[in-house]
């Protein structure tokens, strides 16, 4: 069953004194149950615009987005967002940050702390429940953000370069953590990244986007994350011959895009 469907979505930005800029052109994308869709592309290809459309922070100029058959008209608890940074609330400790969405939804303290503790455990943050978020490392902060996004039991998790600000080692561990959470919770995921390796490793479906105007230029089905669950060795998969071959192919596509866009 198609859970999230984007049909002919286009976005125009008005520019003073000039014709409007087309940020996204005729996007068609389906995300189904259990899908982990990764959007990859050079800067300015409209990845974040697409995520904002799905999240409901932005309305398409043309076309529509449907989740479970219902047209998306604004943000809602059926779609949770994990941001790259600056999204935690520094006046709340880790527990209250994770429980923030539940508080908004009007759950009492006991209920929301119970649910929040479950996700804190899932993300391995038990020792930091009472810590201030600004005292945590970047990787820990992202775990808090992910735990918070999961508490509202969304249909789909929208991740806008959630690992972009992390160092390389933390990032690899966080990739595996997110994959395990995706497997354990069975959520749909829409994940944005700049890293080709990350995109290939994590997604079940890869959407390569090109700039000016932002559009989907290639779609690939990916086997690597499922393979990871079988053998459990991330580096071995990232070093395998077919992984490297696909990685180079996609890099080639992106570089060609950039050149043709800048020429």
């Amino acid at each position, binding site marked *: 069953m198609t859970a999230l469907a984007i049909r002919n979505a286009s976005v125009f930005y008005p520019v003073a004194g000039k014709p409007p800029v087309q940020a996204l052109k005729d996007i068609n994308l389906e995300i189904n149950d259990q899908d982990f869709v990764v959007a990859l592309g050079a800067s300015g290809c409209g990845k974040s615009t697409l995520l904002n459309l799905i999240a409901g922070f932005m309305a398409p100029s043309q076309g529509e987005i449907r989740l479970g058959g219902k047209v998306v008209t604004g*943000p809602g608890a059926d779609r949770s967002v994990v*941001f790259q940074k600056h999204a935690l*609330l520094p006046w709340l400790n880790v527990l209250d940050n994770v429980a923030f969405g539940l508080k908004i939804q009007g759950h009492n303290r006991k209920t929301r702390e119970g649910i929040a503790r479950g996700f804190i455990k899932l993300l391995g943050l038990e020792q930091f429940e009472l810590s201030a978020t600004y005292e945590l490392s970047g990787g820990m902060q992202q775990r808090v953000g992910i735990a918070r996004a999961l508490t509202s039991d969304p249909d789909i998790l929208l991740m806008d370069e959630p690992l972009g600000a992390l160092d390389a080692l933390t990032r690899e561990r966080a990739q595996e953590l997110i994959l395990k959470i995706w497997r354990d919770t069975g959520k749909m995921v829409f994940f944005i990244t700049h890293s080709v390796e990350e995109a290939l490793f994590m997604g079940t479906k890869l959407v390569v986007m090109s700039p000016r105007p932002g559009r989907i230029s290639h779609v690939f089905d990916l086997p690597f994350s499922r393979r990871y669950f079988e053998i459990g060795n991330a580096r071995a998969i990232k070093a395998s011959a077919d992984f490297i071959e696909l990685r180079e192919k996609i890099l080639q596509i992106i570089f060609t895009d950039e050149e043709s866009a800048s020429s």
Partner: protein
Amino acid sequence: MSETGSRSGSEMWADLMRAKPAKPGEVYGVPGQGESVRVSLIVIAGLLFTWWLVTAVGLIKPLFLPSPMAVFGALVDVLRDGFTGSSFWEHTWISTARVFGAFLLACVIGIPLGIAMGMSPIARGVFDPPIEFYRPIPPLAYLPLMIIWFGIDELSKVLLIFLSVLAPMALGARAGVKSASIEQIHAAYSFGATRWQVIRMVILPSAMPEIFTAMRIGIGFGWTTLVAAEMVASTSGLGYMVLSASKFLQTPIVIMGIVIIAAIAYAFDHLVRFVERRVVPWKGRA
């Protein structure tokens, strides 16, 4: 030139401007790094000493600048006998009540007003012109109007102080609205938050550092306006005490009153800073 001891001015200047060596346990190059309390204490002691010296040797006549002892004596006198029929504590209490009453009123009205102006273009359109119009006017200029409109009793005095505090409070809160990141706001909305929940649970808490700064600036304006407010038809208050003492050339009481006003304002500023550290320990760190 400087070989034999005293160095030339340009060399000393160059010395001051030179990059300093690194010190262990310190991040290099942080602006304003280091302890300043000791320097402040030395400067205060130095100023007091100079004050004492110039009055003790008779450089300045007591009418223009009484000695520190004379000022302290004035405090003792007023503490014992009161001033124009009211005790020292009555003067202090009535002024403090006027300033803090006006300040609290300005917080209660100014903070929601500033948040509303930050959140809504309509509120901004309505309130921006009047606030920006009256804000630069010296309170002394509209004091006569306040008296004609609101009488010579407490109301006009408190309102005058209130108006001087209101503008910085509202502008501070309005600027504070911009402190919340769009990610924090989006996160709240994506959990289904209402606009009101976003204001209460995201916008207002993240505006707190700016609001505290506005409080410190605002209470300063309040004390500044106090003397003007107590100029007309007052029989008590620190501002009244200073003004009427000046009419009778009782300079020690003038200086004593000024020092008391400054001391209360200074103590309150430290109280706000203390509360600020407790309430927004994350200021500048997240």
